[in-house]
């Protein structure tokens, strides 16, 4: 077990390094000089003083060759120094920006996951209980339908419906905390993303459990149906749902990217888009580091938790 986890850890670490290397290389050779870009886009380029640009480059260590820059970045990162933003929020430490932005997205993400899990598991159980009857088909089809509409279509359509036609709410805009009215729409929409995975996983696990002999035994003993479902069925059903955590994370990241952009919520998704649009190296690297870590850690946690929840997996 320990060696299995160690190999996993090693693999993911190599993967992380590789991704950081590729990201940095793509920015260095592809995106170009952010200082020059800054003067082209925001200042009058003719007045740009070559000496000023050189000084700025030196300040951010952008005057060094690629390998030196990348090594420098890793060295500083290992010491907890994420660098300073070049253009987005000039000269502010990236770590500070991430510490402000990430919690907003995480609150949205956790709230959405909670809703998605409760709704998804309930729908999956219901569908399995009514297997191959109209309720099952309705649930499966509706989930498929709702989740196949892209999030950047859902949000504008909901805005049209709720704001313009029904006049139920004012335009949600920005971030005023998770318990503010404006957080309802983003949380609800982000929650749609992970739904199909959860419903499908719950439904198929439930179908498998339904025909187990201990369920028949429980029924023969005369236990009430609700108790059978809650006590005997749900636990083995919930276990495989844990494996979808990786997919849930990707759905959340994708969701928050668009939702935060459309509703102008200053979270991590919006930071990603802003950083990329302004070619802010340290921001893009931070996004790559955090994004990769979120995916890797969630996969890693599944590897650890799953054998604890399901003893049958431990045998291998």
């Amino acid at each position, binding site marked *: 077990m320990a060696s299995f986890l160690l190999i996993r850890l090693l*693999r993911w670490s190599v*993967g992380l390094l*590789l*991704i950081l290397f590729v*990201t940095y290389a*793509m*920015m260095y*050779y*592809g*995106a*170009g000089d952010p200082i020059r870009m800054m003067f082209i886009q925001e200042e009058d380029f003719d007045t740009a003083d070559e000496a000023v640009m050189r000084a700025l480059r030196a300040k951010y260590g952008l005057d060094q060759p690629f390998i030196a820059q990348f090594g420098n970045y890793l060295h500083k990162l290992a010491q907890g120094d994420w660098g300073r933003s070049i253009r987005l929020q000039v000269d502010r430490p990236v770590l500070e920006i991430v510490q402000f932005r990430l919690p907003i997205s995480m609150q949205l993400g956790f709230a959405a996951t909670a809703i998605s899990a409760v709704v998804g598991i309930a729908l999956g159980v219901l569908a399995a209980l009514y297997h191959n009857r109209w309720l099952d088909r309705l649930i499966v*089809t509706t989930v*498929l*339908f709702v989740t*196949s*509409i*892209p999030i*950047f*279509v859902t949000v*504008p*359509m909901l*805005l*049209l419906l709720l*704001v*313009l036609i029904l006049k139920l709410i004012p*335009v949600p805009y920005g971030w005023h905390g998770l318990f503010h009215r404006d957080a309802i729409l983003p949380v609800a929409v982000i929650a749609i993303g992970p739904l199909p995975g959860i419903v499908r996983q719950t439904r198929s696990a439930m179908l498998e459990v339904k025909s187990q002999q201990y369920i028949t035994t429980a029924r023969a003993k005369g236990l009430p149906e609700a108790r059978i479902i809650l006590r005997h069925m749900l636990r083995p059903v919930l276990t495989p749902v844990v494996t979808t955590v*990786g997919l849930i994370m*990707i759905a959340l*990241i*994708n969701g928050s*990217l*668009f939702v935060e*952009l*459309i509703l102008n919520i200053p979270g991590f998704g919006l930071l*990603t*888009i802003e950083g*990329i*649009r302004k*070619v802010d190296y340290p921001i*893009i690297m931070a*996004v*790559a580091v955090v*994004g*990769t870590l979120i*995916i*890797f850690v969630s*996969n890693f946690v599944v590897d650890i938790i799953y054998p604890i929840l399901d003893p049958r997996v431990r045998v291998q």
Partner: protein
Amino acid sequence: MSESERGTKISRVIDDDSVFLGEQRNLWQDAARRFSRNWLAVAGFLVIVVFLVLALIGPHVAPYDFLEQNIVKAFQGPSNDHFLGTDDLGRDVFSRMLHGARTAALVAFFTTIISLVIGVVVGGWSGIRGGRTDQFLMWISDLIQAMPGLLLVILINTTLRRPIVNWFDALYEQTRNPFYLNTLWLDYVLVFSALALIGWPGLARLIRGQVLSINEEDYVLAARALGASERHIMLRHVIPNALGPLVVAVTAGMGGAVLLEASLSFLGIGIQPPNASWGSMLEEGRRYWQIFPHLMLIPAVTIGIVQVAFVFLGDGLNDALDPRRIS
């Protein structure tokens, strides 16, 4: 069918399961029958057919040039002249939607072809060679699949566009070949490649799995025992059996490519103006959504319908082609 013909047919298939149904059908006929019973999947199929036809002929039947601006006629609602109204520059929305259909279909088609070729080569090689080759190739594909695909595509498109355009400029300076002057189609190539990069690992995994599992089947063992060549086993057993899941995966991949293209252009990254794309039309329409909602509504509804159609088509194909469902 005369009585005697019927007799020979039944006796010919007497040792087959299908004798109970009175006639012989192969997997594909069987799948087509099951598919046609699923009306949602059929509806999805029809929508996709309409989408592809419009993409093919649309730009030729479009009432206006999709680039033609007329500021005087900006922000018109649907009318006889302009079936779906006009946008902020007075361009005909219907003509632009038709061009957007072509953009989406082009991206879906080329992305699928490229990722299919890479996926078949890598997956097949991985499955046949096994060992270290297999481990390495699957590690790479795992790594790409673990990434949020959208972020990867965004990164590729934002960083690689400029150097390639510069490179083409330099080539033009050197050769004076007008071929290098037109860089509009570079956007497309970049989008195809980026989408194919995240698309191939899924297909490679699928094909590797199929090659491995079909090679384990008893009928392949029997064929080997009878002295069948590897080539015969590949053509006769592995490929026909892998085709069903592949069709499902390719359909899903095409839908995914259309979605990602729309996402990219919605973020202002993929296909650049003046080329028309549904994603960028949605983004442009979003600026005026409280005053002229139709500009946002039309591309949004279209993207939604096409995505739903792809998903239901894929779902129906999956149900129809899954051999385990044949009972």
